[in-house]
């Protein structure tokens, strides 16, 4: 247990770079599912490992041991690192719990504010128009989901391109893409090393919505033009003046989306190159089994200690 329990905590550092490579080779929909599932499994495994560590240490505290009806002496010596590791794990768990709660509250409040704001005003069907010259458009999840678009964006696009925009945002809403994002945010909160999965996931979701829009409008070139012109208009208007430090010299997300749309539709879902897929599956499996293994070990240890306690109870005064 002593060693297995560390694996889930370290696994994200190996799995994230592999997953980033792998996601580029999958069709967008599969990539979004795979990245989200990976993030959740790794995060939950690492949280379980932290829990196991903390519990193993807690059982050495006399009052906890008494409450659990076990004899601390019979838990085995453990390693000298057990107590400091448990303390750290307990601190980490407390911090993570607070962080997740805080994020969730913040997230819900933001959603509520946004909905309240758009409740009144020029809306028709699922469309909410804001008077603003800076081109912006996004999907606001909820019941009902809404497409929020500024007048600046509507004016920057032709009628056909506006249909692309609406189809794209509707694909986000009907595909419930915000659930993928929220699940991954939760995973990132539980294990910060999973941060690296954010960008590939949001790219996969945009590509997914782009493909849906291309299918809905039946025109890939028009879809590509809509995405490209919207981005150029937004830049020209200076609405996104903040340069992103993370962007490399190679193409950022928007040109890659446009290129993908202009290219002929990708050949039917070629699976991940075998080695990458195996490596990722191995990461997930190792992470999950290690967490499970550690927990089972601890449980077995507790059972032994409890059983012995039953026998020892006769002579044990304290």
């Amino acid at each position: 247990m002593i060693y297995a329990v560390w694996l889930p905590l370290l696994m994200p550092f190996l799995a994230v770079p592999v997953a980033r490579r792998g996601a580029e080779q999958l069709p967008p929909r599969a990539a979004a599912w795979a990245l989200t599932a990976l993030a959740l499994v790794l995060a939950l495994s690492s949280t379980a490992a932290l829990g196991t560590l903390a519990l193993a240490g807690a059982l050495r505290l006399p009052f906890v041991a008494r409450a659990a009806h076990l004899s601390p002496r019979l838990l085995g010596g453990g390693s000298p690192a057990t107590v400091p590791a448990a303390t750290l794990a307990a601190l980490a768990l407390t911090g993570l719990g607070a962080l997740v709660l805080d994020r969730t509250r913040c997230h819900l409040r933001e959603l509520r504010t946004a909905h309240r704001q758009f409740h009144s005003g020029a809306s028709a069907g699922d469309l909410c128009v804001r008077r603003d010259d800076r081109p912006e458009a996004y999907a606001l999840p909820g019941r009902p989901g809404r497409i929020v678009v500024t007048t600046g964006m509507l004016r920057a696009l032709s009628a056909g391109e506006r249909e692309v925009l609406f189809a794209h945002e509707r694909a986000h809403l009907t595909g419930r893409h915000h659930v993928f994002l929220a699940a991954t945010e939760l995973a990132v909160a539980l294990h910060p090393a999973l941060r690296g999965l954010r960008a590939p996931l949001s790219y996969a979701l945009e590509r997914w919505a782009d493909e849906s829009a291309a299918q809905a409008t039946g025109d890939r070139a028009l879809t590509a033009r809509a995405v490209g012109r919207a981005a150029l208009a937004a830049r020209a208007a200076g609405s996104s003046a903040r340069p992103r430090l993370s962007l490399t010299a190679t193409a950022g997300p928007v040109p890659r989306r446009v290129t993908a749309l202009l290219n002929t539709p990708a050949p039917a879902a070629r699976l991940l190159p075998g080695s990458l897929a195996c490596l990722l599956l191995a990461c997930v499996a190792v992470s999950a089994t290690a967490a499970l293994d550690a927990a089972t070990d601890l449980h077995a240890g507790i059972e032994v200690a409890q059983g012995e306690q039953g026998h020892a109870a006769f002579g044990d005064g304290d």
Partner: protein
Amino acid sequence: MPDGQIDEPAHDPVDGRTDRRPAGELEASVLAALWAADAPLTPGSVQLELGGGLARTTVTTILTRLHAKGAVTRARSGRGYAYAPAQDSPGLTARRMHAELDKDEDRGTVLARFVSDLSPEDEQLLRTLLEGEPAGGEDSV
């Protein structure tokens, strides 16, 4: 994958679309056309602006419905009406929205935006792509 939202392109454009597309989507398209225009539009010009995919009567019906909801205003123009989007209190809400948007990086979880920010290199590349020039397979997706 949302299906059945828009009929296949080969379909007869006169009536077919209106039956296939949900009313809410048509309303959105019509309202967007009004916002994109600089001046009030008659049903005829809305139809023209939307590329002739909708029948004139359909456009008129949608405009009437939007007017009943208070999303558009109308004024007499010749024998019919010209429609303009209803203005809501402009400055305040726009500022508030941007305050929300600019607030923090976490907004990604709430708001999936249509396009992300462009770097100068992206902008150049994008212009090349849209002009129909091959970008020179430097990035493979």
